[in-house]
């Protein structure tokens, strides 16, 4: 069971979004996030809402997978909304006196709160679409390519991508090992399941220490094996799989251009 962990929860598919070049997709996701933070009026929000609904539909990914990403965010979402509702100065619509302290809900607060909520939800959905439709390998390759111009300012683009690839590769291996150690400890009377959170956290120590030691040993052996196959960083390295842009990337460009234009018009007109 623990073997089936996949990072990024990639869902294979055949949609136009799946077929896009990872580099373009990452850049689009970034651009989308920027757009989310420059829009400010209701019409623009309506446009973005329609857009994201269209993207979800287009990706062919079931809505439940996309909404799953929101679950761990629930607390942050709620917290942001509450802070915004109570802390934004403006015309009060509701006031509550607690001792000598006045808690007031303002009209502006409610509006900003809702906007903030929508922004964060769309942010999560937008990035989920990226990770759900791009395999981790394509994602790391895309990141390497996007970061490569920054090598001039000493950003280790290849090394970052390599580390991510190896991390992804070792997740199942280490998960399996954690499982094994856990069973070995359970067989000797360790208890991982009962007791308070503190107790359970403490019970994890005899699991984590051997796991760590073994991870270092593996890293050492892997380094030798990579050396033996002539690995010497990103210099003069070629790739078997070349990234190719397709017509879908051009469509994506057009879609985002149109979206930006509509948003710009909405900003001036309303």
């Amino acid at each position, binding site marked *: 069971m623990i073997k089936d962990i996949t990072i990024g929860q990639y869902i294979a598919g055949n949609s136009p979004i799946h077929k896009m070049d990872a580099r373009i997709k990452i850049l689009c996701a970034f651009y989308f996030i920027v757009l989310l933070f420059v829009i400010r009026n209701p019409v623009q929000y309506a446009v973005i809402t329609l857009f994201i609904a269209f993207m979800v539909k287009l990706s062919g990914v079931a809505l439940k997978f996309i909404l799953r990403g929101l679950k761990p965010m629930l607390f942050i979402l709620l917290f942001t909304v509450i802070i915004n509702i109570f802390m934004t100065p403006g015309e009060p619509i509701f006031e509550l006196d607690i001792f000598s302290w006045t808690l007031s809900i303002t009209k502006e607060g409610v509006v900003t709160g809702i906007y903030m909520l929508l922004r964060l939800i769309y942010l999560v959905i937008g990035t989920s679409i990226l990770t759900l439709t791009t395999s981790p*390998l394509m994602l790391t390759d895309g990141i390497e390519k996007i970061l490569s111009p920054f090598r001039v300012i000493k950003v280790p683009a290849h090394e970052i991508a390599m580390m991510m690839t190896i991390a992804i590769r070792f997740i199942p291996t280490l998960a399996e090992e954690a499982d094994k150690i856990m069973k070995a400890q359970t067989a000797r009377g360790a208890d991982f399941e009962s007791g308070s959170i503190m107790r359970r956290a403490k019970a994890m120590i005899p699991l984590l220490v051997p796991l760590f030691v073994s991870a270092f040993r593996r890293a050492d052996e*892997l380094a030798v*094996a990579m050396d*033996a*196959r*002539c690995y*010497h960083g990103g210099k003069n390295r070629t790739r078997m799989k070349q990234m190719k842009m397709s017509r879908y990337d051009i469509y994506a460009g057009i879609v985002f251009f149109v979206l930006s234009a509509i948003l710009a018009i909405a900003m001036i007109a309303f």
Partner: protein
Amino acid sequence: MIKTENLSCAYGEDEDKYLVIKDLNLHIERGSFTAVLGHNGSGKSTLAKHFNGILLPSGGKVYVDGLDTSDENMIFKIRSLAGMVFQNPDNQMVAAMVEDEVAFAPENLGVDPAEIRRRVDRCLEIVNMTKFAKTAPSRLSGGQKQRVAIAAVLAMEPECIILDEPTAMLDPSGRQEVIRTIKMLNKTKGMTVVLITHYMEEAAEADRVIVFDKGEIVMDDTPKKVFSQTEKVKATGLDVPQVTELVHALRKEGIDLPEDIINVQECADAIFERLK
């Protein structure tokens, strides 16, 4: 193919100096299949790591195809000539997909993408793993993983392949898969193979067996000649193949059997012959 000249390797300094390999002269012929035997700590893995410049000699020289392993400019050439497969299949895989794993070495060597593709397809076919090209290594069995590791080394188009206990972590069927692949590489592709092992049955498959103990070569001959000297092999802390052991015991009891039996079939035939 591989030649060592007075090779020695030491850990530690001055007084604590511990010699793992002592003044070793060895020549591994092109196209041969050599097994290096030795018990744990005999220095056999250390020796293997000298063959492709992962470790550099503290004394003497190692030449691969005439190239000195201590020559830094030649190191990638040397490593692609003498590929190495390691013991733990999980700890030598870099990529999350079999075909990317095989592509790793030629990518490092800067080979043209189309040529990499061709090499990957060919190497996966050689080890009979073509249908797993798109699989994650974690979903393969131990024997399959080691075959992928062999393909990953073959993708450099080496002339020699060094395997450092490639079967130590495998189950018997995985072990067979790997040994069969190695033998096939040697017989049909003419690949020079150096197999480091402590399984006698595997060593018996080779053309030449080198018994290594305390950093020195104790025996160096064909498997038949080596294993027929049962006492001498045992003195180094190793076992002989079970059949050899049996023949040895029978001979001691005065039953006349040939001395140089090293595999089950030969043994069965010889005993059958005697009983007739």
